[in-house]
């Protein structure tokens, strides 16, 4: 497709906006909510994962995905676009490893992934990605956690805590009140679940949310059993 179009489909409107990117952000804001919170010793990512049908085998599809040992992703928006970005991010992380024999620092991976997203707003015959990503990671040189958001435009923002997707405004307001620089990872997980609960319709169970944590040991997705424990603590 893209080799036949020599021109970009994302063009400026008279007011200076790239309308395709605005529309992509609309797709993101219609997607299911995701939350990221950076604690003192780690980062937590959480998202709603509601199945459309009781027949869905929802334990086999994941929204929270590891990219490499120390980095994980979650998204809001279009699932298939996310899948592609996960594959690209994984490849970028391994390319870095091949050259430097080091785990890619989160900042570096974010730059590379954001560059890919930007490419799709300027290259011929393609449309922007309909996802915003929350990227969490641990930087071993600086010995601290990072949380970034990547938008369809290719901009990226470092966050202490943020929410994306449906009701993200309420989510961020909630986080502004609840966030503290002294949060430990355990508290951050609780806060993330509570933030999701604000916009959650129905009963929250370990099968309709997904949580990932990243600390010095690396990134991992919590098992449904662990999620159930956290939910029980919330009551």
């Amino acid at each position, binding site marked *: 497709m893209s080799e036949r179009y020599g021109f970009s489909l994302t063009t400026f409107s008279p007011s200076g906006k790239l309308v395709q990117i605005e529309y992509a952000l609309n797709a993101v804001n219609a997607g299911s909510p995701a939350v990221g919170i950076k604690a003192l010793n780690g980062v937590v990512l959480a998202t709603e994962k509601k199945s459309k049908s009781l027949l869905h085998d929802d334990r086999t599809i994941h929204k929270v995905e590891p990219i490499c040992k120390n980095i994980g992703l979650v998204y809001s928006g279009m699932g298939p676009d996310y899948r592609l970005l996960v594959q690209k991010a994984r490849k970028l992380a391994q390319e870095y490893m*091949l*050259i*430097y*024999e*080091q785990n890619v*620092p989160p*900042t*570096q991976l974010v*730059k590379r992934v954001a560059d890919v997203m930007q490419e799709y707003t300027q290259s011929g015959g393609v449309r922007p990605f309909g996802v915003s990503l929350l990227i969490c990671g641990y930087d071993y*040189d600086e010995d601290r956690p990072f949380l970034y958001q990547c938008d369809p435009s290719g901009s990226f923002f470092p966050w202490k805590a943020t929410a994306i997707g449906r009701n993200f405004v309420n989510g961020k307001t909630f986080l502004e009140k609840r966030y503290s620089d002294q949060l430990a990872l355990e508290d951050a997980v609780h806060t993330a679940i509570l933030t999701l609960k604000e916009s959650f319709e129905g009963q929250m169970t370990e099968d309709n949310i997904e949580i990932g944590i990243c600390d010095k040991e690396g990134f991992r997705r919590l098992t449904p059993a662990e999620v159930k424990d956290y939910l029980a603590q919330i009551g």
Partner: protein
Amino acid sequence: MGDDIMSYNGGVALAMKGKECVAIACDKRYGVQNRTIATNFTKIFQYGDHCFVALCGLATDVQTVSERLKFRTNLYELREQRKLKPIVLYNMLTNLLYERRFGPYFVYALVAGLDPKTGETFVYDSDNIGAISDNVNLATVGTASDFIFGLGELFFKPNMNPDELFEATSQALLNGVDRDSASGWGAIVYVIEKDKITLRELKGRQD
């Protein structure tokens, strides 16, 4: 000499480990087969506060590889906003060399460095297509590498202090190059410690 491309210009380098210090040394000869042209051609390049690379082999490739590596390390430091670690520099260099696997650069490389915080020492060597080695006590490259290796093994002791390390490195280099017509004409030795780097020039046999 003959038509062996790796001994066309001559030259040698050596790196040795001590206790929280490393030494890297090279000769200064630049020649074309049996004719010595210059005696100020050093083969050691610095890429960070405590990261050094020595390249021996065809002089044009010594220059080109050192410059192309500098290109990559400059961009790395700007992009990543961090200083190079010896292991990262080593991997970048071997990656650079392997990119030319089927039309290689004619240089063998040594990487020597130190972690200024922990005092951990690093000495690695590589062939001209980027074969990696372990972190070793002693490594040599160049036309007199075998001679210097033998002497180096003899003089090496574990956990040497900077002065002992300097002596062992210098003696191994100076006496090794005397057996090789393509190396010599002076030498330089860097001794890299956590808080300082000392560069010393050695005057050996000027032949």
